[in-house]
């Protein structure tokens, strides 16, 4: 694989890497026919991000040397990020960036051609890996919001930087509401301030969602995409479904597209018409409903249940295809039920498992189902599913 990026696009690539670094620790680089894809997933498999740069983004793009298979690799996010660490420097001095990956070389070579003839070469070691693909299909999500990223970025400004989770919902008068999410506190003494921003529907390019729907996701992970989208002046689309189902954020333009898939908290509200609502674990007393649905304690394993289903391809089928299976989601409850009773106590005591943090032992939430395995059978009693590591499969 060999590609050459020039001019302002180097900074765009750098910004994309910065956004991805907010999510995961490993970057999956995969040159495809339709472009170069950069993907990552967080350690608890509750957030997945992917950027695809079309061949037009590059001055030169060669996915694979003729006669060779498409290669793919996995590198440490930290290493790749260090190349683009200072975006200001990248913008000022880098003229060209050349990324090459070849079977013979054991390193991913990133070369920055800078002003005054300075050439910086980074040799990053990588691991062979399976293709990282999340199973998701924005088209299947019934609800959609679309707005210039700027609108959402401004709304998010009122939240403190330390806030982990935020709830997005539709309130009265078709206003879009973003609210800081708080865990139920036992006593009132340590309650934190609740901030809510309400945006009129006129600011949205598209708004297809009923009043009362609300989903909660990790704000920190979302900020990564938001800052990228804002700097690129793009519109952000938010595809979502009932609480528990992942929320999909997409941005696109002629040269690139990005998808961020974040898990959402499963609501314990009995009035939620969630498919999998008959859950055994309902340990938390219900709050009374009000216009913006209250979000009660979540059960960590339930989040895992709705974790983005990951699939690995055995072959070199590099398609970023989104198979129309949402089956993995539905089948999970059976998997989850096994987990639930034992974890009931746990999750009360546990501080919230913020997507992105290593999950507590009981809630091993990885699931990488191979597409060859029958979708309906969860991988046995053990909830721990390791991703196919190098050389396997």
């Amino acid at each position, binding site marked *: 694989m060999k590609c050459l990026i020039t001019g302002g696009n180097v900074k765009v690539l750098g910004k994309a890497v910065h956004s991805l670094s907010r999510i995961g620790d490993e970057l999956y680089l995969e040159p495809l026919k339709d472009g170069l894809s950069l993907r990552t997933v967080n350690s608890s498999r509750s957030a997945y991000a992917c950027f695809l740069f079309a061949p037009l983004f590059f001055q030169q793009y060669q996915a694979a040397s003729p006669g060779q298979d498409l290669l793919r690799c996995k590198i440490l996010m930290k290493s790749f990020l260090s190349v683009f660490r200072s975006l200001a420097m990248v913008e000022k001095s880098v003229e060209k960036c050349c990324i090459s990956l070849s079977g013979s070389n054991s390193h991913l070579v990133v070369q920055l051609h800078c002003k005054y003839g300075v050439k910086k070469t980074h040799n990053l070691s990588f691991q062979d890996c399976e293709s990282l693909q999340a199973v998701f299909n924005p088209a299947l999500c019934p609800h959609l919001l679309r707005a210039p990223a700027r609108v959402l970025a401004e*709304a998010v400004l009122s939240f403190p930087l330390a806030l982990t989770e935020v709830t997005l919902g539709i309130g009265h008068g078709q206003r879009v509401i973003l609210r800081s999410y708080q865990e139920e506190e036992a006593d009132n003494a340590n309650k934190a301030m609740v901030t809510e921003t309400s945006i009129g529907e006129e600011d949205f390019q598209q708004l297809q969602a009923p009043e009362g729907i609300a989903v909660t996701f990790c704000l920190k992970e979302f900020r990564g995409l938001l800052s990228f989208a804002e700097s690129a002046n793009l519109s952000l689309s938010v595809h979502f479904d009932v609480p528990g189902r992942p929320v999909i954020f997409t941005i696109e333009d002629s040269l690139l597209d990005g998808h961020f898939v974040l898990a959402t908290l499963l609501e314990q509200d009995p009035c939620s018409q969630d498919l999998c609502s008959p859950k055994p674990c309902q340990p938390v007393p219900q709050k009374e409903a009000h216009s913006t649905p209250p979000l009660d304690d979540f059960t960590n394993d339930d989040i895992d249940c709705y974790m983005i289903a990951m699939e690995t391809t055995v072959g070199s089928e590099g398609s970023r295809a989104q198979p129309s299976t949402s089956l993995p989601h539905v089948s999970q409850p059976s998997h989850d039920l096994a987990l639930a009773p034992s974890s009931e106590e746990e999750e009360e005591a546990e501080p919230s498992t913020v997507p992105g943090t290593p999950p507590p032992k009981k809630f091993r939430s990885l699931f990488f189902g191979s597409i060859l395995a029958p979708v309906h059978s969860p991988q046995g009693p053990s909830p721990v599913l390791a991703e196919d590591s190098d050389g396997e499969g």
Partner: protein
Amino acid sequence: MKFRAKIVDLACLNHFTRVSNMIAKLAKTCTLRISPEKLNFILSDKLASGGVSMWCELEQENIFSEFQMEGVSAENNEIYLELTSENLSRALKTAQNARALKIKLTNKHFPCLTVSVELQLSSSSSSRIVTHDIPIKVIPRRLWKDLQEPSVPDSDVSIYLPALKTMKSVVEKMKNISNHLVIEANLNGDLNLKIETELVCVTTHFKDLGNPVLPSESVSQNRHPEDMVEVHIDIRKLLQFLAGQQVTPTKAVCSKFAFSLPTSSLICIQSSKFKYAQFWELRLPGQSGRKVSLS
């Protein structure tokens, strides 16, 4: 108990924000006292023995375009609330270019002060509304007596302070040398800041500061204008006061008292523009404070 207020003027909003920022820098929790005419921010220094260490008063009609309150009862038409000062300043921070700001007392799952900001952003056609629910604790009536306005007792010497910024830079340098600061002043407009250690003694002299004319001159009548009255205070307390000053006051008056024991110093700040007054009582730690009682 009810409270609703609205600010529409940007200058008033800025002033209120600055006062709130100052409070947030000084203490983690503060008491807000709401009465028909005034709004007070009160900080009680729990380390000192009783009494108020900072008292800030705002005339509500200078800030709010609408103000309605109903106290605990008809005879006690006041509300005392305790809240985390940073929450209020953070909420007000989002209101920098607001069209309107509303504050009201609500009970959404828990008692809170809801600050609702209406923003008109240039980027959007409609207005954006940001709401902050600040959790509060209502202070019961039996504790109100500890939160009363300190009376300004008769002083031996009263003097106008120099520019607070200048004073701050001087005091900041002195802090590195010693914790014990001696302030001397007389009725001739002279003020000295003195620190003394075994190795060095540093004094900064301010002259021609002017003395306010106080109604009760009885105590100071016998005093020779050149006589210096001194008080000993903890320099860190003074710095805390100086660092928090963001609101530019018209006058900062330092009133001093010298008694046989204890000696303490009271700083009084008044801004005539917004009818806002602050009282600070500074005491050297270890001295038993004189409890300030309502006169």
